[in-house]
């Protein structure tokens, strides 16, 4: 057989949104050009999600809430751990995407991916412990059994950090879903490809469709309808600029959304730091049950 002289032509991937467990294109039919961190080399076209895509994602997320929040904490922990297992097997792909997206060396990008895998493990362990740490019996002064337990708030819109395209992304998604919430995630505007690829991992990790929905496009354009949406319970403004954050927080007030303000505008936090529990408790309600003791 004759070997071809020409080098093999690689197959490009069409990046799509991840909504309701499926991979649709934007209903708007729009895409935008994604380049590497230096802005020179074209990497791919990403879907430019519309307001309608955002609303569709909220519908998918809401549908997923009863099943996911009703699953046992143990089950959710196993699913999050399964995400870590699946990601571990695709470390090289993500390291490549992260290196391109963030202009990192191969080794530094790989470290980001490893840290992201470990972050899934960290939150997998929290699913069945957070209630024991933030809930408990209250010794009220009377003959009553009184117990406080945390419950998920519902649908959380998440603006992923703009710079840390993968470790930062995982660090904001995992705590939302660990406790039983569903998430609508707006990926980093400039570097959305790792986020869109994460959808492929989530889709094969026993995570029910709709628990995480990933949108790419203009953060401000997608975030506005999410912040104003009456069926969204909370919004994480991590990836918002200072100006956008204020605007969105104002819109979120309309149905009294739980709001997490960006610690640093755009989400340029140190994502390698100990994550603590703050991102878990931000999306929890506390329910206290009273029952009389007597006769």
């Amino acid at each position, binding site marked *: 057989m004759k070997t071809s002289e020409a080098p093999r032509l690689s197959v490009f991937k069409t990046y799509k949104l991840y909504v309701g467990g499926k991979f649709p294109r934007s209903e708007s039919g729009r895409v935008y050009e994604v380049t590497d961190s230096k802005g020179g080399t074209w990497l791919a076209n990403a879907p430019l999600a519309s307001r309608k895509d955002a609303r569709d994602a909220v519908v998918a997320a809401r549908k997923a809430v009863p099943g996911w929040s009703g699953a046992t*904490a*143990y089950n959710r*922990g*196993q699913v999050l*751990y399964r995400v870590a297992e699946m990601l571990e097997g695709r470390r090289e792909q993500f390291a490549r995407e992260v290196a391109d997206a963030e202009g990192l060396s191969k080794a530094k990008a790989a*470290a980001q991916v*490893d*840290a992201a895998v*470990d972050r899934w*493990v*960290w939150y*997998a*362990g*929290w*699913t*069945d*412990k957070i209630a*024991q*740490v933030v809930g408990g019996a209250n010794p009220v002064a009377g*003959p009553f*059994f009184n117990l406080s337990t945390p419950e998920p708030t519902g649908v959380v819109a998440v603006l992923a950090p703009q710079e840390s395209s993968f470790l930062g992304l995982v660090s904001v998604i995992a705590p939302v879903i660990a406790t039983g919430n569903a998430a609508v995630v707006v990926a980093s505007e400039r570097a959305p490809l790792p986020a869109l690829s994460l959808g492929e991992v989530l889709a094969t990790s026993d995570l029910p469709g709709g628990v995480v929905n990933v949108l790419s496009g203009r953060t401000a354009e997608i975030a506005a309808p999410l912040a104003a949406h009456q069926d969204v319970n909370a919004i994480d403004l991590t990836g918002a600029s200072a100006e956008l954050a204020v605007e969105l927080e104002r819109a979120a007030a309309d149905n009294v959304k739980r709001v997490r303000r960006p610690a640093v505008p755009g989400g340029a936090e140190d994502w*390698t*730091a*100990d994550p603590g*529990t703050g991102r878990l408790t931000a999306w929890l309600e506390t329910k206290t049950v009273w*029952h*009389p*003791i*007597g*006769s």
Partner: protein
Amino acid sequence: MTSTHQKFAYAPAPESRAIVDLAPSYGLFIDGEFTEAADGTVFKTVSPSTEEVLAEVARAGEADVDRAVKAAGRAFTKWSALPGAERGKYLFRIARILQERSRELAVLESLDNGKPIRETRDFDLPTVAAHFFYYAGWADKLDYAGYGPNPRPLGVAGQIIPWNFPLLMLAWKIAPALATGNTVVLKPAETTPLSALFFADVCRQAGLPRGVVNILTGYGDAGAALVAHEGVAKVAFTGSTAVGKAIARTVAGTRKKVTLELGGKAANIVFDDAPIDQAVEGIVNGIFFNQGHVCCAGSRLLVQESVQDEVLDALKRRMSTLRVGDPLDKNTDIGAINSPEQLARITALAEAGEAEGAERWAPACELPESGYWFAPTLFTGVTQAHRIAREEIFGPVLSVLTFRTPAEAVEKANNTPYGLSAGIWTEKGSRILSVASKLRAGVVWANTFNKFDPTSPFGGYKESGHGREGGRHGLEGYLSEAAGPTSAHDGHLQALPGGEREGERDR
């Protein structure tokens, strides 16, 4: 009696034992390797349902205990210094491998212990894996557990477990010990050594560093040597109250931390407003689960006088449907008694019950010819003075007492040196809570019984022991009370030396 209360005819449905690959002999697991006992002694482990010899197992002596404790001591330095997240990942691996191999281990456990495959398959093994999964997650979260900042491990834990739930008791011991950074030397019971040795193989597959887990098969002498060894910083024991007291005496005056999970004589209290059918299921589960070889078994039924006849009629009908026989048959409800010694103890106490004047009843029940068996048995007319109301029988024998008022029920329930568990059956929530608050027992089940979960602490009051296993509380027994020296930050992003990822080293 109508036909619906009779046993349905059925064909045997035995689980295949081909999934278990048993070797003719097994060594001790010390420092990551299987090894013979120093003096070469071995003993046989038999299947209690057939009396067939399953394998020969090395019998640990004092020299082996010393070797194992030293191996665990050497392993402690590196293991306790690992970032919690990395320790946790080893435990997650173990949990996943246990899930993968759960059918094999369930069959093995049924063979060696005699308990029904339905229980090993649906209860023991899933709970074992869940326990490791739960504590895996704690390894990097100890600062949040409420036991002070920067809690530190103790050192080498000497752990002794009973034969009634061999692998589950192993999980209760090893998972929290490893998560908190301790290393362990574990001695399984002499009648059920096999699943612990298979667990050693799970540790190998998980790439666990050598010496972190050591398994010593043997008898009480090995257990006593382990408790007394000066290299042991923590003793964890599950078993009889008599041995628990001996252990407490041995460690007196040392700095060893001790947790004891001992015997029980649980009251299962049925009020007149209880959902009777549900209560009867709970009574049956409470005393006949695992042949009654359960420290928290509901072995004293306290039934309100006004519903006594109704409850007893329903209970006897239900008991008549229980199937006793081949543990590997998926239809079996009650398997074999674990050993001839245990069978003799149960038989002697049941005879004492009759001799002291209680009325004995058992359903017509054909028992297999070989193996160790005891039919599900009920005693009525039992008083609080009877031995069968006071002593732990640890078999499928239920003593029935009556009461008139809630106060009398509480009084009788608490009239025991034990205090492990209790059950309450009533539709009235406020009564559940008031009775529960007065019971001197570590676990109280309301309108259910024998429920276990890795997140839920378990352990007794009074002579049922002290310390809790399971849940956040289960960490405490493996952590230092004093604020220890500050170690390297356990942040889970910390780079490991050589860029090598822990665990790939030992594979």
